[in-house]
């Protein structure tokens, strides 16, 4: 094996990897999980989706048009915001728009810092740099904001009496829920802080592994990984801040009382 290059996976080897599915299938059959059909379907989908996105990315990387890239990034934010909203229960109203604003603003801001100051590709909007980095930050940011928003609503919903008691003391809406908002913020930040703690000890992140397999020098891959994780933490923090800032007021009426849907348990 040539040290500077990367190991190719031939068609035959790809087919061999499918044989691993059989192991999963046998376990599923043995435990009567009834997962076999779903498993086959999921495998086919994963293969087709990845192949297609491979072509799409090749096309976009070759095209390298700034407008096409921005449209694609916005589309990614749109899909991510829908997915994030789906994970939020007990929201008094749709969170799609707020999640979209929070994700777009936080991810664009952080990615601008990365490509403007740290990685500085030429040209600055190089699709092959911007899109993968954007995708990684967006994915994590999406989980973070969904966690924090879901936590905020469930915390307030399970502490309606306390919140109303504080309102009776003349508390402003913010004062009445700030403790729960802090918990929500922490819930959103905890996964990324935990991964910062264990990275390199317990887990070798996919990006770093990929770059090493692709022949990049290990220390360079490590530096990339570190930058990305720090950026993810920043994006999650900014995203949560924007989203919670936009959402908490919507739990209240113009009369500084909790809206009826928050009061119902």
């Amino acid at each position, binding site marked *: 094996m040539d040290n500077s290059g990367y190991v190719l996976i031939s068609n035959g080897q790809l087919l061999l990897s499918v044989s691993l599915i059989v192991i999963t299938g046998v376990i599923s059959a043995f435990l009567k999980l009834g997962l076999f059909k779903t498993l086959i379907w999921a495998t086919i989908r994963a293969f087709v989706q990845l192949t297609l996105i491979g072509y799409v990315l090749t096309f976009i990387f070759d095209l390298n048009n700034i407008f096409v890239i921005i449209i694609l990034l916005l589309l990614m934010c749109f899909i991510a915001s829908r997915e994030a909203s789906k994970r939020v229960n007990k929201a008094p109203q749709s969170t799609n728009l707020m999640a979209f604003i929070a994700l777009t603003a936080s991810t664009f801001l952080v990615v601008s810092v990365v490509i403007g100051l740290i990685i500085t590709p030429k040209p600055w909007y190089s699709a092959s740099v911007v899109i993968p980095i954007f995708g990684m930050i967006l994915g994590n940011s999406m989980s973070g904001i969904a966690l924090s928003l879901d936590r905020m609503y469930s915390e307030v919903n399970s502490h309606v*009496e*306390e919140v*109303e*008691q*504080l*309102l*009776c*003391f*003349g*508390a*402003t809406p913010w*004062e009445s829920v700030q403790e729960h908002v802090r918990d929500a913020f922490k819930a959103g930040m905890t996964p990324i802080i935990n991964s910062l703690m264990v990275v390199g000890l317990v887990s070798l992140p996919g990006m770093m592994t990929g770059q090493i397999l692709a022949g990049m020098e290990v220390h360079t891959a490590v530096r990339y990984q570190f930058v990305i994780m720090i950026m993810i933490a920043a994006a999650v923090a900014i995203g949560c801040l924007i989203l919670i800032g936009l959402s908490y007021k919507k739990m209240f*009426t113009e*009369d*500084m*009382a*909790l809206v*009826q849907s928050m*009061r*119902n348990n």
Partner: protein
Amino acid sequence: MKELLSFQDLYYKFDNNQRFVKESGILFSSQVLVLQGPSGAGKSTLLKILARLIKPDSATVFFQGKDWKTFSPNEWRLNINYVAQQPIIFEGSVKDNLLLPYNLKLVSEKKQPPTMEIIEDYLERLGLSTKILNQSAKTLSGGEKARIAILRAVLLEPKILLLDEPSAYLDGENKEIVMSFFNDWLMQDKRGIAMVTHSQKDLNYINNYTTLNITPRRHEIG
């Protein structure tokens, strides 16, 4: 007797069914307005509406001759202070609980925290030992929690107390102590109480009260 609070044609329709509240009433100063009626009639809801925690579908409410909409909601709630049936106790000591409102912006602007002498005096009047002040409030008995929640409201010097079954967690002797306490409290500068209670006995300790019977109401189906 001076009119303190009045509500005219207060109307509130409950979610997803035909039940509704439609009541009018007047609370005079130095008087208890007792809200009675079968459970589900909307007594507690009426108190929460008067505290502006629930928005009625329509209502004309006046406090000391002024429309309630002229008050900001948090200022209103300080003047017309609601105490829930289940006492709400926060983390921290009894003292922390009593002083908690003074950490909030509006209260810290308008009111001085009560001195220890005042707090201790009130504790004794409510039949509580001053030793509990540094105890974790969550470890209090139900009856102690209820009186701490009442005291916390009283320290804020509201004009009106809205009390939802204040004796629900109290035993016989403490029922008398607390009800007599309210009776004394009413005597000073234009105060009033609106109270939900099921206990006729509680009212023996109150000199001046009127009763408003809340009847369960339903819209005709179809």
